[in-house]
């Protein structure tokens, strides 16, 4: 009950935040919401199921191009959501097959190669993607008469989608599937001996995580209104990986925090002018070196030590 009240409070605060901000601030908040969705997808694949993927940016790209191509040709964004999710799910399922044979850094390289392949397709297949010229004039949707053209409206739309994705992810990780994903990450041999079809769950982890990445892409396209291939290159995949790890891999609220660090923190550090990216890099290095379980892992550690010290005091 207390948790639900806190969540409602957080949602209300998120909805109220942009009203005092300039358009760039609202853009950053919208980008946070979009990147959080993409990181939620990667957290399912990597954090819960333990399957490393350096291809999440590709699925954001697949979603973004699906949305751009459809909406610039008069299709509603809702169709793009469905098509991008289905397409990303199917491609993610196929990408999961190598994970049945290899793991860890080998799997990282397989997914890295896939990311490069998608980038090359986006850049070279001009007849479909317009190559390096990109696609511009991507419209923002009108939903039941509500135009999301203004930055605040589009931000609220992003929040609604984030809310829906969060509910779905919450349901998934708290269902028996979530337990099976954890078992797959912790000990696949034991999981298999208990009847967990690790092959099917591995493919599902990839497919669902990729589909969520695709959904993030569908939101990304109308947010920036112009997309080109470099936005979905390896840099974004590494950035999404960073979000999951910095927030706390395998922790439900990790992506929300990780995306905030990745999207908002560099902007806050701009007071240091030319040094801001260096300070950001230093922060990430120190955090990962001293707290590999991320910010939420650090919070958990502090909470436990506080509990222990207050117990010993009584």
């Amino acid at each position, binding site marked *: 009950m207390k948790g639900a009240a806190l969540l409602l409070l957080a949602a209300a605060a998120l909805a109220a935040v942009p009203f005092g901000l300039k358009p760039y601030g609202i853009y950053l908040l919208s980008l946070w919401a979009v990147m959080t969705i993409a990181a939620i997808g990667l957290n399912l694949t990597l954090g819960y199921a333990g399957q490393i993927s350096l291809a999440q940016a590709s699925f954001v790209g697949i979603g973004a191009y699906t949305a751009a191509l459809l909406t610039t040709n008069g299709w509603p964004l809702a169709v793009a959501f469905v098509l991008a999710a289905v397409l990303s799910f199917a491609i993610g399922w196929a990408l999961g097959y190598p994970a049945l044979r290899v793991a860890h850094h080998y799997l990282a390289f397989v997914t890295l190669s896939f990311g490069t392949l998608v980038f090359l397709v986006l850049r070279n297949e001009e007849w479909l993607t317009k190559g390096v010229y990109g696609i511009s004039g991507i419209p923002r949707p009108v939903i039941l008469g509500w135009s999301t053209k203004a930055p605040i409206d589009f931000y609220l739309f992003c929040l609604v989608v984030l809310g829906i994705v969060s509910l779905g992810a919450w349901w*998934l990780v*708290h*269902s*028996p*599937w979530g*337990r*099976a994903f*954890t*078992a797959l990450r*912790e*000990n696949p*041999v*034991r*999981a*298999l*001996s*208990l*009847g*967990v*079809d*690790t092959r*099917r769950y591995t493919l599902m982890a990839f497919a669902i995580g990729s589909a969520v990445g695709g959904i993030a892409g569908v939101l990304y396209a109308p947010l920036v209104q112009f997309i080109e291939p470099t936005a979905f290159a390896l840099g974004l995949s590494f950035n999404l990986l960073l979000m999951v790890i910095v927030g706390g891999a395998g922790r439900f609220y990790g992506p929300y925090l990780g995306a905030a660090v990745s999207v908002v923190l560099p902007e806050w550090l701009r007071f240091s002018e030319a040094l801001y990216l260096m300070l950001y890099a230093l922060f990430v290095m120190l955090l990962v070196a001293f707290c590999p379980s991320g910010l939420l892992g650090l919070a958990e550690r502090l909470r436990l030590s506080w509990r222990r010290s207050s117990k010993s005091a009584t």
Partner: protein
Amino acid sequence: MATVLQVRDLTKSFGGIRAVDGVSFDVHEGEILGLIGPNGSGKSTLFNCILGQLMPTGGEVRLAGRAITGMRPCDLSKLGVGRTFQLLQVFSQLSVRDNLVLAGQEHAGGMWSRLFGPRDAGLAAAADRMIDFFRLRALAEEAAGSLSYGQQKLLDVAMAFMAGPRLVLLDEPAGGVNLTMLGDLRERLRAINQAQRSTFVVIEHNMEFVMSLCTRILVLAEGRIIAEGAPQAIRNDATVIEAYLGD
């Protein structure tokens, strides 16, 4: 007594080494069969061949008459074959209850019903029974990784029984368990054997434990069965003594 498991001429080679060399035996319903032998005699390899972790080089395994040779472990589990491993294999980040629910959830319903059904997969009562049976009530909500070694061992064994298997292969259940916990484990295994009419095959190095638990014992040396019989007969068998102590 019906035959639950039939192993016929099972062979497993690694390069030029025959780890399991033409092993044949039957396991009957309700019995507790011990499988002993010196280190490197092929016991764990034999287990892994029966349980689909390793593909045998030759031979056949049947479960209640059905050929199961080389079947995937998850499919075997669904046919009612449970196991434990030599080393502890609990899911340390899940609670004791979640470990037990996980051990049973894949046996109930399909993939989609598990996604949209209840969080505990309808196994709350079964998990509670198992928690009480293995006297883990006070630890039910604790993370498995925070339990003592002996408690984790009990949980490991409890997980193997969660889905009500007809055959359970236990790989060194007494390994690393202290004397108090050992008596508890033996008592629990006997009780569950009586209650569920489960059939066990037990690999064990602790002779006192295996002799007092099992109804029949097979002795393996250099990949072959060298003796078979009641615990008392095996204890006094000259071939067995020689295999363990050498010339």
